[in-house]
């Protein structure tokens, strides 16, 4: 690392702080999408359309915030729109001979396209932002204060991952979702309506993905444009596999991916410009690495819902 000219007296610590701060800032959409996908996949369906839901959530949140002047109204509308996308996926999936993966890809393109169509008018105006809580106000260091500027949605997401982890074991709804995802036969024998449970689970997943989109456009990066997601919704789906369908692990994995995403900007801010694109690719490289590391020709993935990926 010769020739590195670090600003201030923090040296490499500033990179670390920036990565931690970045992890908290960048991870929130990952967290919401992956929690949503966890609910959906635990019920036995894959919704790859969450990337489109994320983008549409970002657009609809931004547009609503511009029009109403309220960021929270934007979040609500994004959640609602995401929920509708999820229900659409779930509803089409119950038709005969529909494959959830292929449908997810179609809905991904549909959601993004629809967002671009309606979002054209909202690229210019500026919207109110979501509030953040300055947990770093005790410190004199600007970097610490910046890193600990934590958005409310991140805290809600953290609480939600604990809640979902608890709910999957301790509530009737949680157990029913797991049963439906693990054995349709058993679920039917107990008299549960498998399609209905999956419809609602996919809808709930869509709500969370929509809210994740609201965070993108209303906090970080905090504006609406067509390249806003850059595939974060798809990576979050991979992250669910990495997290073994466990909401708590989703939280950790989201932080890890967020930190990897913050690595590029953090290094750039301290003047490392070599390998710029490589560092920006860190989350994608990490996704690939995770998929390779967790794959095995001989062993089924522990914790995978039994009905996942069953072709019709």
């Amino acid at each position: 690392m010769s020739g590195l000219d670090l600003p201030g007296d923090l040296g490499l610590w500033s990179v670390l702080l920036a990565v931690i701060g970045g992890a908290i800032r960048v991870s929130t959409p990952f967290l919401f999408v992956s929690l949503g996908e966890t609910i959906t996949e635990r019920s036995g369906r894959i919704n790859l359309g969450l990337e489109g839901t994320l983008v549409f959530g970002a657009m609809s949140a931004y547009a609503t915030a511009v029009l109403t002047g309220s960021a929270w109204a934007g979040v609500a509308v994004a959640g609602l729109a995401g929920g509708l996308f999820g229900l659409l996926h779930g509803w089409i999936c119950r038709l005969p001979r529909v494959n959830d993966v292929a449908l997810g890809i179609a809905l991904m393109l549909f959601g993004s396209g629809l967002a671009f169509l309606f979002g054209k008018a909202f690229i210019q105006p500026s919207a109110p932002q979501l509030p953040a809580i300055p947990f770093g106000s005790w410190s004199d260091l600007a970097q610490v204060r910046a890193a600990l500027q934590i958005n409310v949605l991140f805290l809600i997401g953290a609480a939600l991952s604990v809640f979902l982890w608890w709910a999957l074991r301790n509530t009737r709804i949680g157990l029913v979702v797991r049963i439906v995802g693990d054995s349709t036969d058993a679920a039917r024998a107990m008299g549960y309506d498998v399609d209905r449970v999956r419809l609602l689970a996919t809808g709930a997943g869509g709500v969370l993905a929509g809210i994740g989109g609201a965070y993108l456009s209303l906090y970080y990066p905090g504006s609406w444009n067509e390249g806003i997601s850059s595939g974060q919704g798809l990576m979050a789906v991979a992250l669910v596999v990495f997290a073994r369908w466990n909401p708590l692990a989703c939280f950790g994995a989201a932080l890890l991916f967020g930190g990897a995403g913050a690595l590029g900007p953090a290094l750039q801010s301290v003047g490392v410009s070599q390998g710029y694109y490589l560092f920006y690719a860190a989350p994608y490289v990490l996704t690939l690495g995770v998929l390779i590391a967790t794959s095995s020709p001989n062993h089924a993935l522990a914790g995978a819902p039994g009905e996942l990926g069953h072709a019709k």
Partner: protein
Amino acid sequence: MRSVSAEAPPAGAIAIETIGMTKRFGVFTALDDVSMKIEAGGFHALLGENGAGKSTFVKCIMGFYAPTRGSVLVDGREVSITNPKGAQARGLGMVYQHFTLVPSLTGAENLVIARPHVPAVIDWRAERAVLAAFMERMPFRLNLDRPVAELAAGEKQKLEIIKQLYLEARFLILDEPTSVLTPGEAEEVLGLLRAMADRGEITVLMISHKFREVEAFARTVAILRRGALAGSGRVDGLTRDAMAAMMMGARPVRKVADRTRTPDGTRDVLRIEGLRANDASGLRPIAVDGLRVRAGEIVGIAGVSGNGQKVLADVLGGQIPAEGGRVLVEGEAYDGRRAQSRAHRVRFIPEEPLRNACAPRMSVSENLAFRAFDRRAARRDEDVPARPTVWLDTGAMRRRAGALIARFGIRTASSEAPIATLSGGNVQRAVLARELTGPVNLLVVANPCFGLDFSAVSEIRGRIVAARNGGAAVLLISEDLDEILELSDRIVVMSDGRIVHEVDAAQADAQTIGRHMAGHH
């Protein structure tokens, strides 16, 4: 074992009566005017071949099927049961052959969620206390904290029964319970249920096609043949011949081919040395230190389902790689590759042939050609082709399929029908036709007769013995101990992934083998 009577369920056993029960599927009559009276508080058996209508009958009672005609009386009152939930609410419970437990949930989670009314938030501390008290009254011990996927088949079966008792079933239907239990376990489980039935706490109806277990456990028996009631009565008043006559009716039965020749003691076709392997879940390691099969010999591997036989079969079939040790066929290393099986004439008949040995949506003739489609026969009628070929000779494939369909009596609409449209017995005949045509040096067979009817069974067993008589070394893996005893020259027992017992068929006795199967060595 504890006494169950201390805190007996609120009400006692239930009686069921059916009147004129008929079920048609299209033009096929699965159940024909069956009127049967099952008295409260006894252990009853429903005997019949596969396809005789036993399952259809109980599924009509349980509300799975709506009967075409006929009615069900519970304790003398006519009731309408339209779904399994309704049956559960009336105190009727059924333990299926396939498990209805959810694999990733623990035993406790499976029990609690099966209740008709589950609270929105489950208080596990309270539930655990209730479950512990309930288990105190149960005839067998089980660890309820493990995920069901980690339980052995016998434990799952026990948990299924416990689940029905937890749901307060007072009329319990058992669908061929001994298919996954060792003789010892069957003795324990069925014995305890019979004790409960004798005390008037529950009524048990056991579906079976084995005389031995009907005689051992049931007080009364009803026999179905081709969907109709062929007879019934007290078990102690019926001879085995009488039951067999009612079950089979009059028809010619093909006998298992007689053994000719004794095994060639000098030539080991298959040798397994220090084999280590594991299945996809990583939960069923096997360690087979030494096993050999000689030419002209059938070695039967007995064992309760889930004790590593399937892993062994998958290693031999090349579906799972070995982690250590060697598999030698005719002295050369073997890991199931196509070139090796061709060179050494290894043939493989895995269990569930439609899933493991066929491409279900491809035609019968294509499936019959899997061994040889990429080779061209030197002569048109020759079964062992020689040179590799790029172009498929579909005409030859079809002619060969036609010949095999005729020779093996495969019932199919045409040689171009998808093989998935065939019945189980005919799928197995097609696989046998493919695997047993031409010279065979080593034949690996797993559960070849599972779920097949009586005539198909004797024919398939006959062909296996014929392959042996032709000089093939046969490794027969089966969960059906009677099949092992009937066919084998030598018997080994697998338990917990290891070979724990080996005996010549001539000296074998079912009790000793059963003890080893159950893990008492």
